[in-house]
């Protein structure tokens, strides 16, 4: 599909925002808008697929330059393999979100605050992926942030949402400014902001180091790398659920796109130290993110923290790829980068799915707090099934897609001992252990999320009364489930599709999977390691069926219903079930007491006192305390000191002017 057409589609979406504003209040507006977004993102998805195919066929990337933006460079757009891949990632999730919103949007309380900004948000993300010069890139980047900020502020009556929006926009500005610095350095100090020019000109190594630093800060603030993640768990839950899905599942990926574009495409040959740094940050982010998530009992915030974890995993892949590339291990680099990109795709799928599930729960019960849910699997079986699949996928369980990308990442880690640098030799195993830990903790966390919310007995009347969500939402969720399963059992196809992208970035690609027998996935060589999701799924299905028929045939198939056994305790109230906090207690004791300096204090009344016993739990976010509060306090103190100037009288102001004048004259006198 020609790039101009793609741009026209995006423009149509961009225009839809202002156009829908006057009628946003009408009942049909939502349906029309989301329908339009669904159609356009569908077309853009096709465009992405075609673009990827074209890249595979080796045709040169399409270029378009519009007379917009900074006059002397114009606004350049480019559709190459990488852009195409991210177009697919963005628009698949976008289409799903629009489909979901067709149903979910009807429950929206403030449509006027959501409809105008939703298409702008989508358009912004699409433009970032296509932009080919610093100005258009940052313009779209910031447009994406602002639009999503409006969406976060959609329900502004909750002070928490206002605070979320506040923190969010400031962090977004930080990221934009740091990227501005990045491009300033890259483009030889703003002299040529065009990516084509930047590509050819490689900055000297010390400049390049600064570029990497600035880029990691700038992208990290948008993608949510620890310690720049603080806005993410605030902002993502605040938005309407289909927007949360896009922010968590897609916008963070667009940020990753920026990192990949800068580090692998625009910047010159890497140094291994960059890889080590990003690897370390990624490891920390992965573990911290999942630990944060385990401590949450708000469903959407839990999911948001998981986004942090997954971004960490992606960063690990990118860091490894850099390290391999710096040492000339083309295949290793290809493997690690493929793992990262594959995980980008996967996370966009299952994180959107999970947020949709959370949204469905929210509309059905009006609650986000896990401890007010429970037993939803009876009221809303389809949502429960989809959420279960999403949980299994994000917990990296075979044969779903989450496992594949983690498997590839681990394979990349396992060949890292070839790297010559001792720092990497020691760092990579640690990160590998961290990766395994985060996977296991993620499983724990989603057992908690699904188990507390959907299983057990209903803890509130609202949860008791929950009914299945509407068809559109179900369709969206089921489509994502199908995508997760397909990507899980046919990973070879995805890897082959990624091959041109990876070749574009590191010059090598993983072995062509379609040539392997039985659709097996091979990391480097079949002798070394291989995985076949399809065979596994068939195997499991077959043996499960064998077990069912065998045991039903040979033995009884009768079933009696009775009260729960529970070691003979009588029927207890639902309040005696494990809550989110109590579920996390063992892990909290093991990890959080160190990381979050978690403290539990039990207030047990004396016998005869009718007051209920209370367990109070205090967690302290180390990042906020160490990094952010000092900054806030500094600014506040400075403002306090400066604002004393208001009390000066006219004469004192005059004296100030006078003092400056004399000072300057003295300087002049001394100068001559």
């Amino acid at each position, binding site marked *: 599909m020609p790039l101009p057409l793609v741009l026209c589609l995006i423009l149509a979406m961009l225009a839809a925002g202002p156009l829908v504003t006057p009628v946003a209040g009408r009942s049909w507006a939502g349906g029309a808008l989301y329908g339009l977004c669904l159609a356009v993102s569908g077309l853009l998805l096709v465009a992405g697929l075609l673009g990827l195919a074209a890249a595979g066929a080796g045709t040169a990337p399409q270029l378009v330059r519009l007379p917009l*933006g900074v006059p*002397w460079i114009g606004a350049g757009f480019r559709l190459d393999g990488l852009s195409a891949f991210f177009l697919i990632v963005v628009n698949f999730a976008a289409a799903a979100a629009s489909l979901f919103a067709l149903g979910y949007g009807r429950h929206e309380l403030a449509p006027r605050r959501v409809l105008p900004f939703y298409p702008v948000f989508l358009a912004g993300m699409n433009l970032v992926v296509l932009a080919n010069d610093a*100005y258009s890139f940052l313009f779209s980047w910031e447009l994406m942030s602002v639009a999503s900020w409006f969406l976060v502020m959609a329900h502004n009556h909750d002070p928490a949402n*206002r605070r979320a929006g506040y923190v969010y926009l400031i962090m977004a*500005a930080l990221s934009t400014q740091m990227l501005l610095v990045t491009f300033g350095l890259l483009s030889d100090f703003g002299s040529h902001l065009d990516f084509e020019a930047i590509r050819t000109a490689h900055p000297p190594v010390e400049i390049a180091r600064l570029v990497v630093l600035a880029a990691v800060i700038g992208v990290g603030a948008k993608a949510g790398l620890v310690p720049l993640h603080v806005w993410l768990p605030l902002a993502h839950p605040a938005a309407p659920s289909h927007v949360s899905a896009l922010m968590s599942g897609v916008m963070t990926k667009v940020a990753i796109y920026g990192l990949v574009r800068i580090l692998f495409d625009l910047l010159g040959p890497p140094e291994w130290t960059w890889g080590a740094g990003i690897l370390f940050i990624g490891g920390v982010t992965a573990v911290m993110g999942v630990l944060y998530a385990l401590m949450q009992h708000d469903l959407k915030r839990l999911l948001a923290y998981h986004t942090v974890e997954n971004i960490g995993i992606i960063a690990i892949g990118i860091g490894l790829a850099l390290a391999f590339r710096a040492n000339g291990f083309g295949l290793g680099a290809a493997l690690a980068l493929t793992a990262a990109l594959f995980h980008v795709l996967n996370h966009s799928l299952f994180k959107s799915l999970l947020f949709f599930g959370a949204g469905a729960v929210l509309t059905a019960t009006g609650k986000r707090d896990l401890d007010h849910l429970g037993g939803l699997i009876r009221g809303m079986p389809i949502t429960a099934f989809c959420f279960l699949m999403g949980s299994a996928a994000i917990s990296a369980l075979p044969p779903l897609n989450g496992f594949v990308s983690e498997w590839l990442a681990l394979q990349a880690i396992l060949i890292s001992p070839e790297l010559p640098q001792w720092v990497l030799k020691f760092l990579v195993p640690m990160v590998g252990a961290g990766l395994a830990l985060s996977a296991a903790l993620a499983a724990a966390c989603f057992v908690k999320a699904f188990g507390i919310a959907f299983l057990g007995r209903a803890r509130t009347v609202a949860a008791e009364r929950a009914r299945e969500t509407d068809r559109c939402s179900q369709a969206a969720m089921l489509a994502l489930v199908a995508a997760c399963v397909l990507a899980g059992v046919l990973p070879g196809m995805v890897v082959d599709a990624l091959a041109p992208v990876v070749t574009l970035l590191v010059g090598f690609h993983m072995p062509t999977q379609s040539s392997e027998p039985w659709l097996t996935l091979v990391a480097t060589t079949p002798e070394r390691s291989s995985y076949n999701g399809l065979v596994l799924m068939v195997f499991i299905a077959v043996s499960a069926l064998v077990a069912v028929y065998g045991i039903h045939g040979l033995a009884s198939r009768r079933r009696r219903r009775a009260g729960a056994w529970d070691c003979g305790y009588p029927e207890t109230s639902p309040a005696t079930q494990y809550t989110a906090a109590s579920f996390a207690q063992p892990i909290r004791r093991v990890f959080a007491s160190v990381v979050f300096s978690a403290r539990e204090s039990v207030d047990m009344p004396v016998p005869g006192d009718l007051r209920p016993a209370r367990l109070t739990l205090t967690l302290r976010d180390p990042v906020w305390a160490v990094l952010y509060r000092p900054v806030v306090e500094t600014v506040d103190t400075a*403002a306090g000191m400066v604002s004393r100037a208001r009390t000066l009288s006219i004469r004192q*102001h005059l004296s100030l*002017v006078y003092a400056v004048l004399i000072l*300057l004259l003295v300087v*002049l006198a001394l100068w001559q």
Partner: protein
Amino acid sequence: MTALEALFRAFTGDFGTAAVTVLLAGPLVTATAMLLVPAHRVAAALNAGSTLVSFLAALVLLWDRPPLNIYLHVDDLNVAMIALTTFISFTSSLFSGGYVEHERRTGRINRRTGQFYHAMYQSLMFALNLALLANNIGLMWVAIELATLTAVLMVGIYRTPAALEAAWKYFILGSVGVALALFGTILVYFAAASAVGDGMEAMAWTVLITHAGWFDPTLLDIAFVFLLLGYGTKAGLVPMHAWLPDAHAEGPTPITAVLSGLLINVSLYLILRFKMVLAANPHVLPPGPLMVGLGLLSMLFAILMLYRQRDIKRLFAYSSIEHMGIAAFAFGIGGPLANFAGLLHMVMHSLTKSAIFFAVGHIVQVKGTQQLPAIRGLGESHPVLGWGLALGVLAIAGMPPFGVFMSEFLVVSACFARAPLLTLVLIAGLIVALGALLLRLNEVVFGEAGGASLRRDGSYLPLVLHLLLVLAAGLCLPPPLVAWFQHVAAQLG
């Protein structure tokens, strides 16, 4: 009177000449007419009409420039500024019609004062046009002096103690600034007279710029110090800024818009004129560090002041100081790109900030107070105002798709080359400023609605017009403007 005499000795009958004549004579005639003839009814309409005429005249100047003359001239730098100034003066006059009417109805001013206000408005426009058109540095000085005096009279128009105090402060600081600027002008004349000979030529800017190479560097240095402090006072650079917040807060809002949108801009423009002269002389000490220092100081000071404000007009007044600081910083850094960015930033800021003040004016009249804590939740109670203000604030905070984003983008990316560390300070400042503005926005627009809600008629046209322009500028700039600014930027050194 000098201006008129200059005018009559001026050009001979082409469109440009006619346009310039209109630009200067129009406001002057209107002002005198209004002062003499009592015409309360039509005063506002007259005001708007006259400013519209001057705007059209300015448009004429865009494609037909008058021949050079030693009193008045039109070149790449001021042609754009004139168009901008006349445009904003037109929109503000539209706005002030409704505003003054409302003030009169609520009895804050009487008919006479209203007419006096319009007359002063016209004379202010005359002064600004003269300052922009002047080729003679003395004329520039006279014009800015006149502008200050009229502005002072308008700031004090409410006659409340606070208003008087603000006007008084403005007057004292303003006149000291004027005095410094005059001394600087005299020194420049000295420098020029010894090079090009005595007489009027030695005061014509076009002559100065061509002969600057032979001027005495010492005199130029000292002169620039005085001129920078003098005109910097008008531009509201810290520490000469003290008048600005009070004048903005206590004066009528249309004047606030004009002060922030035009007067401080024009003053900075005059500083640029002299900077160009210095740039043309290789022996002078570079003025860059001076402007960088003042600019950075102004920016940081203003940003920190943003946090403790409880008066909405004062808040945005400090933001104006901040942006003047940014522009001065850019010019101080120098280089074609940074200068271009600075010029663009001046234009964008004046458009955006006046839009914001239009919104603020409506809000203050609707809410009956300027106290921020009393203004909450406009998003629900007054959607147009609330969202207009929100968009304006986002624009001024440098968010796309508005023009300030582009100018700040260029400022940062260009200044990063010359002074990376200072630019990092600038970036930090920008983020902190966003924090401060957003903090207010959260309450004013998104907070829980409450408080009074008075009736206020009057069109939102100016607000919308400005926002649309800033939006368009953020998407793409008109090529001729770019060409002019690039040429000027090269001259600015």
